[in-house]
């Protein structure tokens, strides 16, 4: 047999067909991906999807129960809850991804370098991580927001900074194990550079717990956004966000408790979606779990 004939047999599936296989295999994962896409779709197309303006007040219709005109009722200033929820989606999803994105951007390289290089680099980085971890998260975020200025982006960047030591510590611990693996030594014998070792060998094998942690952090970030907006450091009124809506509804809890259901439910569904998707992603990226 010629190599050419055999070469034909060694044909990799296209990315598209791999995705199709994944959808068939992982029903729960593809369902949560769908939910996430819907949420993102709503966030992006909010101005066209929402029936009313999210900030238009109508004092003749305050704290109304759900009706045909206002599917989810109105809030304390007579604004349509559904419209605010739809417009709030973009803020909340943006906030969650921004915070986790920043955490990854800082945490992954820092943790990788600390774990892989070891020595005094590791000592310095680990002490900084310990210091950051000893602060209460929200207090640190408040302090960082205070220094950088109020606003959703600044608030979530500071949440990201608060999250980053968790990511860094996690990936550092895995890196310490992976860097001793024989396949890293084997690659070294072929002349691989440190960058290549980190990108091709260490990161793919050390990132797994970070993916799971990220999905948990996305959910925590949603809640952090709510807390910071509640404290007046995040989304500024009258702009809606889920956390802000929840905080506002809290004030009318005794008069109109149903105000809290919609934003609360959306936060919960989104957080759950992130978690399920994270688990699916972890399985999908692990070749040893194929077919499970």
């Amino acid at each position: 047999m010629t190599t050419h004939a055999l070469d034909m047999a060694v044909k990799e599936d296209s990315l598209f067909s791999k995705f199709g296989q994944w959808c068939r295999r992982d029903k729960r994962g593809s369902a949560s991906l769908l939910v996430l896409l819907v949420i993102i779709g709503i966030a992006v197309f909010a101005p066209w999807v929402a029936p009313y303006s999210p900030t238009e007040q109508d004092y003749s219709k305050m704290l109304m129960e759900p009706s045909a005109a206002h599917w989810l009722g109105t809030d304390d200033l007579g604004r349509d809850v559904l419209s605010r929820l739809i417009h709030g989606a973009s803020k909340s999803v943006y906030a969650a991804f921004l915070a986790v994105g920043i955490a990854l951007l800082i945490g992954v390289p820092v943790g990788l370098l600390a774990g892989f290089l070891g020595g005094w680099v590791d000592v310095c980085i680990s002490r900084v991580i310990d210091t950051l971890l000893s602060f209460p998260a929200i207090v640190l975020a408040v302090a960082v927001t205070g220094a950088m200025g109020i606003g959703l982006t600044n608030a979530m960047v500071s949440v990201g900074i608060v999250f980053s030591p968790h990511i860094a510590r996690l990936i550092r611990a895995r890196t310490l194990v992976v860097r001793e693996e024989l396949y890293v030594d084997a690659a070294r014998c072929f002349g691989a550079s440190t960058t290549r070792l980190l990108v091709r060998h260490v990161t793919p094998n050390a990132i797994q717990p970070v993916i799971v942690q990220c999905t948990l952090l996305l959910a925590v970030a949603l809640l952090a956004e709510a807390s910071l907006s509640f404290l007046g450091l995040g989304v500024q009124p009258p702009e809606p966000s889920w956390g802000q809506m929840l905080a506002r509804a809290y004030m009318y809890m005794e008069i109109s408790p149903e105000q809290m259901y919609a934003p609360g439910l959306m936060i919960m569904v989104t957080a759950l979606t992130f978690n399920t998707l994270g688990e699916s992603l972890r399985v999908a990226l692990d070749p040893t779990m194929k077919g499970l």
Partner: protein
Amino acid sequence: MSTASQSSVEDDRNIVTVENLKIHFPLKGGQTVKAVDGVSFQIRAGETLGIIGESGSGKSTVGRALVGLLKPTGGTLRYGDTDISALSASEYKRLRKNYQIIFQDPHAALNPRMTILQSLVEPMEIQGEGTRESRRKTALAALERAGLATEIALRHPHELSGGQKQRINIARALTVHPQFIVCDEVVAALDVSVRGSILNLFADLQEELGLTYAFITHDISVVAHVSQRVGVMYLGNMMELGPTDAVIENPLHPYTQALLSAEPRPVPSDMREDRRIRLEGEIPSPVAPPSGCRFRTRCPFATEKCKTEVPQWREIVRNHRVACHYATPDGRIG
């Protein structure tokens, strides 16, 4: 290497020269583990040098140093005539691909997240050889040469058997056309049934490609089977080095004699009666090795001299060296 240089003097050309190699690992509290402490030997082009010794003798440490995975604390390592410590990073990168290692654990040596094909093309990517398509061809050809079907190229390591994985490690080394391969306990982790075929593969490749091997093992039968010369290590030192037949049939060093007599293989009973040496105790700690001769604490022939003087690395018989004050050419001690 050009073909012109592979002339009749090939046998005398040293592919690796190690002089007074020392590899120490610092411990907390200022102590050091002297894993390898002053070892010298040459490996000639085309030969197989066996290195034997028990656990903790430093044989694997030597193997890892030979391919640059450990930096020598002292001494020199030369590839051909080149002292590798004098090379620039890019020169070293180009040279080191000629010096490869196959590890004991075939599974751990493959990245679990990469397909076999990805693992096989990586060395060529690192070295910047060929195009995407040519690398793929070379990889598949190497896979076939190592006795595997190319269909497995898209699998992941966990889907394959130990023997298959070891063949893949061999194939991966072959993709960059090395001259020298360290085989570090390459069959120890494999089923007995596949050991023979892997050893035969190594032998075939040597014949076909003119490879040079350093075969590190604790298994004397493997060494006897594959190597022309054998070195015996104990506690970071080379105790004896000579032609395999000579070392196995007429060991000169008391440690080698003990090691061979411990091998549970059928040997002529007269030999067993005469030469049976039982070693007392454990191998001492490499943190604080014995003074003088390192073997003296377990040697039945040890004297006061062994405590105070480090034995010379003497060539007692032609091409047969030994580090013992009392070794004689006929194998008697004293």
